[in-house]
């Protein structure tokens, strides 16, 4: 049975999955121009399935770097998915073998959508629909991009990159009810922004999040004392 709330969460999840998945076009197109064949490009999207790591890998390969150096860079970026998993675990409450397929779709967007919900049931709906939705679309568009190259055009023309930022803000918005929450979010945003020019992709998000959590914990203590 699908409850009305579930239907809303599913629609919201697909609202994030479509613009994110469409970005697979860029990856497919860049993949084949970086010296990978169509099969290798598509396998990366299917089996690695975490955008930033995939782009990092083909970036190193394209610049003539050692593929293992590319894999190492990509794996360092992938460490943020471990932290995502730690935040998701108490919310999704998955046990045993259910964690095996779930792990594959632990990415930026599925994490953000799940963390935006209040209870386990809603979080699971958001996590699976966003994660699997992106998995399907990301791979379809990767194949399309790899075959058609740049001919299809840049997703940015349609404002798809801006849609994802707006989605993250919409998830954050209802949580900004106290000054404490607003400061934590601002610290996270400020630290992440400051680190963008200084550190490889992926690091600013995790570092910004970590510093903001720390500041949040410390300011809570002061208030209690």
């Amino acid at each position: 049975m699908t409850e009305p709330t579930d239907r809303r969460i599913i629609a919201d999840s697909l609202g994030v999955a479509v613009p994110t998945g469409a970005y697979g076009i860029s990856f497919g197109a860049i993949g084949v121009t970086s010296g990978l064949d169509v099969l290798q490009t598509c396998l990366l999207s299917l089996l690695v399935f975490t955008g930033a790591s995939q782009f990092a890998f083909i970036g190193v390969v394209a610049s003539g770097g050692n593929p293992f150096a590319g894999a190492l860079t990509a794996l360092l970026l992938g460490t943020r998915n471990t932290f995502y998993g730690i935040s998701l675990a108490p919310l999704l409450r998955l046990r045993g073998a259910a964690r095996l397929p779930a792990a594959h779709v632990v990415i930026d967007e599925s994490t953000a959508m799940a963390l935006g919900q209040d209870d386990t049931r809603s979080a699971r709906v958001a996590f699976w629909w966003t994660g699997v939705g992106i998995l399907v679309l990301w791979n379809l568009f990767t194949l399309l991009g790899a075959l058609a190259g740049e001919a299809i055009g840049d997703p940015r023309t349609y404002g798809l990159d801006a849609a994802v930022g707006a989605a993250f803000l919409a998830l954050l918005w209802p949580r900004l009810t106290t000054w404490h929450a607003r400061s934590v979010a601002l610290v996270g945003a400020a630290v992440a922004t400051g680190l963008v020019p200084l550190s490889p992709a992926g690091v600013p998000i995790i570092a910004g999040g970590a510093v903001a959590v720390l500041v949040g914990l410390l300011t809570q203590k002061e208030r209690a004392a």
Partner: protein
Amino acid sequence: MTLWLAIGVLVVGTYALKLAGLAVPQRVLDHPFTRRVSDLIPVALLGALVAVQVLADGSDLVLDARAVALLAAAGMLALRMSFLPVVVGAALVAAVVRLLF
């Protein structure tokens, strides 16, 4: 061949990293400190995600159509519009800004 091997390492490694986070034992997750931290994580992480998604272009910081769209999204959220219209509206704003400038 080297390329295929590197892809293999990347595939196995990425999956292991993803699974490691989900496999943290329940007893750790039930600890009061973990709960306090996990209450703060969504706000902290979403704040960072919004900033990077809107301002980063590779390792450069840029103010472009995405920032205009984010302001529009904030306005729509302040007017209590729901999730999907805000997301679609922001994409439209960015597309129009890029078309005009």
